[in-house]
């Protein structure tokens, strides 16, 4: 028995919540990377703490690939429901590994390898060891040296005490042993090349990339309310609060969160919040407060399917409209949607500078898929990390909203300088005091909206064109679809097709239309039901994108889906 020989492998772990699939994932992605292979992982799971059916996909490859594929070369089934859950993705090439018990009623045509994982766990003292045993099995099959594996186990369980570490090492060994037995019947990984450099690369999640960027941007204050999939960023920031002087406070609700962060920013601390769709909806009034008072704040929205509570642990790109048009009234804003971790780091860091520079809310759109994927990257570019300082020491007769030619009023903060800093959510005069002077009103709107937008439009991040500029077909994407579409293009390997990826979705890059008009055919991929970005492009350019491929079942696009759509488009 053997796996189809290829230079990348997709391994899927499936079981119930509480079985420790995340632990297996954690061990394996580290082990694979340390062994010198490229690795990436992504997961889909139910909104429950125990039971149900969750799965994680881990890819190991020679090339740097970072996207989700439907293909499963190997499936490790930790419970009975796994095969049913993933039946659409199983084919005769899928090697299914699992306990006898779990694979009892399995389809005859399936390619099954029985391994006593759960059984051995019971023997070792409890079902909780199944995850480490499973990791050991896979690690062995992937030819990862057991020293590397043991070291990871030691590091991961260290804080749980020597007793636990010992037991888990033993479980790992058991896994290796099972793996040895299995590897007689299968050969894998032959064509995947090692690259010793990878060992020293970074291994991040999307959340890590954003979080590191926020730290680099000198974030000092974050108030938030837990909400999947933004909670992980809250946790990241809370955990690094001590080392980086960040005040993290769990607010009583989302409304408090953003209002606190705006207050903190008024007082001089770079501030942010993290939330998700429904939680963000509650913050919209306060987005208007940021716009009106011209108080900078960074807003991270981890998207998930709505409306309302929707599918809490799934992925979507449904909140683009909600952020572009959030808040009553009209004022400047910037919206980013990073597609890869390097960009995410850079954008998150820049978000704080831009928020301060223009005294506006800056949004970072992420989603469950992006936030919770892992992969290795060579490094993060720190060369352009700079905390641009836009705060002035106030003179005695300081006027917070001084009307300047470019629309930016030098921003002071209370207690720093001789002046007083007056900000107001009502329409206000230059001093910041409430006014009903309708002439000033117009000037203030011009300042907050037209003038600032003019400046902002000068430094929009250009979309990234992947592929040559002699394309016939132009694929459009934004945010988390980046890696998937890019890999699909690689698979297709066609000169006719290029991919235009937007890391910044608002305001729209001025020359977007040129790219679009250059194509014979345009196609957009979005994880929503209405084609929000396509509509927005039309709103801004009048251009009608020919094909919209919309997916809104809570799962990300797979490389195969994109390939198929593009193939059928080419075939037209």
């Amino acid at each position, binding site marked *: 028995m053997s796996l189809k020989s290829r230079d990348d492998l997709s391994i899927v772990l499936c079981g119930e919540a509480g079985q420790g699939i995340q632990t297996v994932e*954690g061990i394996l992605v*580290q082990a694979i990377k340390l062994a010198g292979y490229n690795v990436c992982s992504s997961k889909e799971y139910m909104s429950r703490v125990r039971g149900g059916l969750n799965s994680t996909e881990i890819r190991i490859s020679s090339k740097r690939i970072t996207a989700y594929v439907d293909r499963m070369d190997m499936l490790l089934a930790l419970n009975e429901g796994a095969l049913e859950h993933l039946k659409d993705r199983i084919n005769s090439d899928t090697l299914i590994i699992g306990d006898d018990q779990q694979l009892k009623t399995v389809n005859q045509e399936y390619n099954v390898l029985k391994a006593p994982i759960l059984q051995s766990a019971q023997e070792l003292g409890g079902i909780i060891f199944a995850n480490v045993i499973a990791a050991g099995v896979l690690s062995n099959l992937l030819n990862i040296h057991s020293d590397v594996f043991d070291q990871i186990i030691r*590091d991961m369980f260290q804080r749980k005490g020597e007793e636990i570490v010992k037991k888990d090492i033993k479980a790992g060994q058991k896994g290796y042993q099972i793996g040895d037995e299995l590897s007689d019947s299968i050969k894998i990984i032959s064509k995947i090349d090692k690259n010793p450099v990878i060992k020293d*690369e*970074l*291994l991040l999640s999307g959340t*890590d990339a954003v979080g*590191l960027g926020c*730290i680099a941007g*000198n974030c*000092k*204050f974050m*108030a938030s309310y837990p909400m999947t999939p933004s909670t992980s960023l809250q946790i990241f920031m809370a955990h*690094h*609060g*001590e*080392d*980086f*002087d*960040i*005040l993290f*406070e769990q607010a*009583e*609700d989302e*409304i*408090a969160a953003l*209002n*606190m*962060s*705006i*207050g*903190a920013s*008024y*007082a*001089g*601390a770079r*501030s942010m919040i993290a939330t998700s769709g429904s939680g963000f909806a509650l913050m919209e*009034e306060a987005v208007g*407060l940021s716009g009106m*008072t011209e108080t900078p704040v960074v807003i991270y929205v981890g998207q998930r399917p709505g409306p309302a509570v929707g599918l809490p642990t799934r992925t979507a790109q449904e909140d683009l409209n909600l952020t572009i048009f959030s808040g009553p009234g009209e004022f400047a804003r910037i919206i980013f949607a990073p597609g890869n971790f390097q960009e995410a780091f850079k954008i998150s860091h820049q978000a704080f500078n831009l928020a301060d520079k223009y005294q506006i809310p800056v949004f970072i759109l992420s989603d469950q898929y992006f936030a919770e994927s*892992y992969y290795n990257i060579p*490094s*993060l570019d*720190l060369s352009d*990390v700079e905390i641009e300082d836009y705060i002035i020491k106030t003179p005695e007769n300081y006027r917070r909203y001084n009307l300047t030619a470019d629309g930016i009023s030098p921003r002071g*903060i*209370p*207690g*720093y*300088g*001789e*002046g*007083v*800093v*007056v*900000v*107001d*959510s*009502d329409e206000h005069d230059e001093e910041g005091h*409430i006014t009903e002077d309708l002439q000033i009103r117009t000037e203030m709107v011009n300042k907050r909206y037209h003038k600032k937008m003019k400046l902002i439009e000068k430094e929009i991040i250009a979309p990234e064109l992947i592929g040559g500029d002699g394309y016939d077909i132009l694929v459009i994407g934004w945010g988390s679809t980046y890696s998937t579409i890019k890999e699909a293009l690689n698979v297709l390997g066609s000169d006719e097709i290029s991919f235009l990826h937007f890391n910044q979705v608002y305001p729209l890059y001025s020359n977007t239309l040129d790219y679009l008009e250059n194509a014979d055919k345009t196609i957009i991929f979005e994880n929503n039901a209405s084609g929000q970005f396509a509509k927005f492009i039309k709103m801004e350019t009048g251009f009608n994108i020919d094909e919209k491929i919309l997916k809104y079942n809570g799962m990300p696009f797979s490389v195969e889906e994109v390939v198929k759509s593009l193939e059928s488009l080419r075939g037209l």
Partner: protein
Amino acid sequence: MDAKDFDMTGADVAWCPGCGNFLILKTLKETLAEMEIKPENLVLVSGIGQAGKLPHYLKCNLFNSLHGRSLPPAVAIKAVNPELTVIDVSGDGCSYGEGGNHFIHNIRRNPDITNIVHNNMVYGLTKGQASPTSRSKFKTNLQVEGVFLEPFNPLSIAIALRASFVARAYCSDTEQTKEILKKAIEHKGYALVDIFQPCVTFNKTNTYQWFKENTYYLEESHNPTDINQAFKRAMETDKLPLGIFYMDNDRKTFEENLEIYYDDKTPLYKRKYEMDKLKSLIESKKRL
């Protein structure tokens, strides 16, 4: 210092003649002057309503926030820069109605700020609807049959939440109010001062006369550290006691509890991270 130091020249005061807010403004200015608090070191945070306009008529740093949302920024401002004196001033509708959730949860935080609530038992700015403190049978354009909800009792609730300072004042008694305000501002931790304030335009029931007749001061003998006593007094409805109901000087403040201030008192807004630390954090990300 002199109360005049807080004067705002040219401010167009939008209140009705005779409004209790004028008394509060005057008393607050005097209090601040007597306490030698400098306008530059003072931040008033207000919401929206007639009361919320107060800081526009007093020279100071001012964050005039959204309706009901004054406490969250106030608490954050103090946390970011504990060297500032932060006072939250707003109306009863703003503080107890729209802002009710922030009221209860910020009491739990115990930030070192003063929370002044102008309690006129009505929504003034929107022209006369019931506020949470409106009393039974009060008729308005929206409460056509009169209010029947149990009035919100800010004192009893604050006490039930172990607020570290709970007081009630009546704006006409300027000297007593000043004394209470001073103690509240001096108090280390969250201090609630609910101030009765007649709205001469929209509340024809709870007038100056009414407040005079329906209030009295807690006796000297009242022990403000006894929480059960404080509660009992706060629940009185026949006549409404004024004064300091409850005080707990032992609770740590929000800022004191913050890890960022354990060893280093530098206000947060002055801090920048060290690049080396960031580098080593990134370095550590070679592993999960």
